[in-house]
C-alpha cells in the first residue's frame, strides 16, 4: 500500500508557525521601500510558503513511471 508519510512533510510546519508568531514582526523598523516591517515581512512570508511547499512537493514526488501512469489515465479518460 502507498503511504503519504514522509519526513519532508515536517518542513510544512515552518510556514504554518512562523507567520503566526506576531511579536516577530509587530514593529515598524527596519522599514523597506517605505514599508514598515509589519507589512513587508508578512508579504515575504508568502515567498516562504511557496518555497517550502515547492521543496516538499519535489522531494515527495512520485517517480517518473508513476507520474506517467497518472498522465496516461487522464488522457485515457478524456478520450472516452
Amino acid at each position: 500500500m502507498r503511504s503519504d508519510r514522509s519526513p519532508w512533510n515536517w518542513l510544512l510546519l515552518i510556514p504554518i508557525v512562523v507567520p503566526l508568531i506576531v511579536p516577530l514582526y509587530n514593529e515598524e523598523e527596519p522599514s523597506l521601500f517605505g514599508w514598515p516591517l509589519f507589512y513587508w515581512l508578512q508579504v515575504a512570508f508568502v515567498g516562504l510558503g511557496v518555497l517550502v511547499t515547492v521543496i516538499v512537493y519535489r522531494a515527495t514526488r512520485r517517480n517518473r513511471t508513476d507520474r506517467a501512469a497518472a498522465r496516461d489515465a487522464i488522457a485515457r479518460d478524456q478520450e472516452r
Partner: protein
Amino acid sequence: MDGINVVELVVVLTLFLIVTVMGFAAARWRRAESLMHLDEWGLGGRSFGSWITWFLLGGDLYTAYTFVAVPALMFGAGAVGFFAVPYTVVIYPLVFLVVIRLWSVSHVRGFVTPADFVRSRFDSPTMALLVAITGIVATMPYIALQLVGISAVLKSMGFSGEGLSGELPLIIAFLVLALYTYNSGLRAPALIAFVKDTLIYLTIIVAIIVIPAKLGGWAEIFNAAEEKFSAGGGAGVTLPVTGQLGYATLALGSALALFLYPHSITGVLAASNRDVLKRNMSALPVYSLALAFIALLGYMAIAAGTTPIGGDSNTIVPELFQEMFPSWFAGIAFAAIAIGALVPAAIMSIAAANLFTRNIYKEYLKKDATPHQEAQVAKVVSLVVKFGAVAAILFIDPQFSIDLQLIGGVIILQTLPAVALGLYTRWFHRGGLIAGWVAGMVAGLVMLYNIPRLGPGGEVVREHFGGSSFALAKLGLDVESSVYTGFLALLVNLLVAVLFTVLFRAMKMDEGVDGTADSDYTAEREDPTFRELPDPLESAPPGPPGEPSARR
C-alpha cells in the same frame, strides 16, 4: 440616468456581456468533447488540470467580497485588517496533505460533499446531516455578500436610486449568473474565472504603480495611516500588544475554516489528480500576494483622503479607483470586482445545492429518488439559493448578511473534527463528534452573542454580534487579550468530542462500520479503484457508499 458615468457603464457592460456569452458557451464546449481538446485546460474531459484548477480555486477562495472588505477593514481599523495575509499564507502548507487525502477518498468512494464523506467514514447519517446543514447555513450569507461587492461598485458608478430601479442592475446580474450556472454547471465559473483573474491582476498591477506615484510614494501612504491610527494613543500601523493573540488566532482560525466550506471542497474535487492539487498549493499564494496589495488600497484611500459613499466603508475601493483612474480604466477595475463576485457565487450555490440534494433530500425526504430527480432537485435548489441571496440583500439590511457570515466562519469550524481530522483518524466515536459539534456550536454562538461592537471612543454601539474577537477577561482571566471566537469554540468542540468518545467507548456503544479503507486515502488517478465524480448538477450521482464500482 443622472450622475451615471457613461464610459464606466459601457466598459462594465461590455465585459459583462463577454462573460455572459462565455458562461453559456461553456455548456457547448462539453458537448463537443472530442473536438475541443484543450488538453491542460481539461475542459474536454470531466476534470480540471493545473491551470484551470488554479483559476477556479483562486476565483473561489479569493472572492469579490474579500477584495472589497479587506481594504475597507484596513481603512477603518488599520493593521488588524492585514490578518488576511498570514491567513492566506498558513492555509496552503496547512491543507497541503489534507486536500489530497480528501481528493483520493472522494474519487474512490464517489463522495461529492463533505457530508458524504462523514456519513460513510463514521457510519452516521446524523453527523452527516449536521455537516450538511452547517455547510448550507454558512454558505448562504457568503453568497449574499458577493452581492455587496457588486452593489459597492454600482454605487460608485452612480446607481444611487432607491427601491427597485436602483437595485435592478444587481438583479439582472444575478439572473444571468443563475441561468448560466443552471445551463453549464461548474464549467461556467471555471471559464469565467480566467477573465476575472486577468482583470483583477491587471487592476492591481496598475494600481500599485499608479496610485503610490500619485500620492508621493509608499512612505507617504504609511505615514498617513500612522497618523490616523496613532491619534488618541492608538498603536499606529502596527498591532497593540493586546491585539497580537487575536490577530494570530483569527488568521489560524480563518485558515482552518476556509477549506471546510463546501465550495472550497467542490473546487478541490474537480482537480484531475493529486499532483495538480499539490502544485496548486504552491501556486495559489500568488493570490495572497495580490491580496496584500489589495489590503493596502485601504491605506492608499486614507492617504488620498477618500470618503466612502453614505458612510458605507465597502465603497472605499471603488471610490479610490474613481478618483485615481481615468473612467475607462475605472470601468475595467469595476468589472473585475463585479465579475469576481460571480465566480464564487456560482460555485457556492452549486456546493449548497449538492449538500441539500444528496444529504438532506435523498437521505431524509425521498429515499427512492431517481438520479434524474436528484439532478433536477439540485438544479432547482441552486436557483433557489441564488434568489434567496438576492432577496436577502434587497429586503434585509446587508449588515445582517455580514453578521451571518461572521457566524458562518465560526460554525463551519465546528465540522473540523469530523471532516478534516476524520481524514486521518477514525478514533472519534460518532456520538462524540455529535456531542462536540453541539458543544462547539453553543459555545460559539453564546460568545458571539456577548461581543458588543464598540465605537471609536470605546462606547457600545451595538450590544450583540458586534465582532468575532472575544475578550478573555470575560472568562475571568486577568488579561486584556482577545481571541478569535471560532478558535475557542473549536477547542470546546474538540474537548467535548474527546471526553464523549472515551465515555461512549467505555459504555461499549456501537461505533458503526467504516465505509472507507486505508488505501482509499492515497489512491492515485491510475488506480483501478479511481472513478470520476459526477459533474455537479449535470449527471447522476454514483451508487451508494460502500460499493466501489470502477467505471469500466
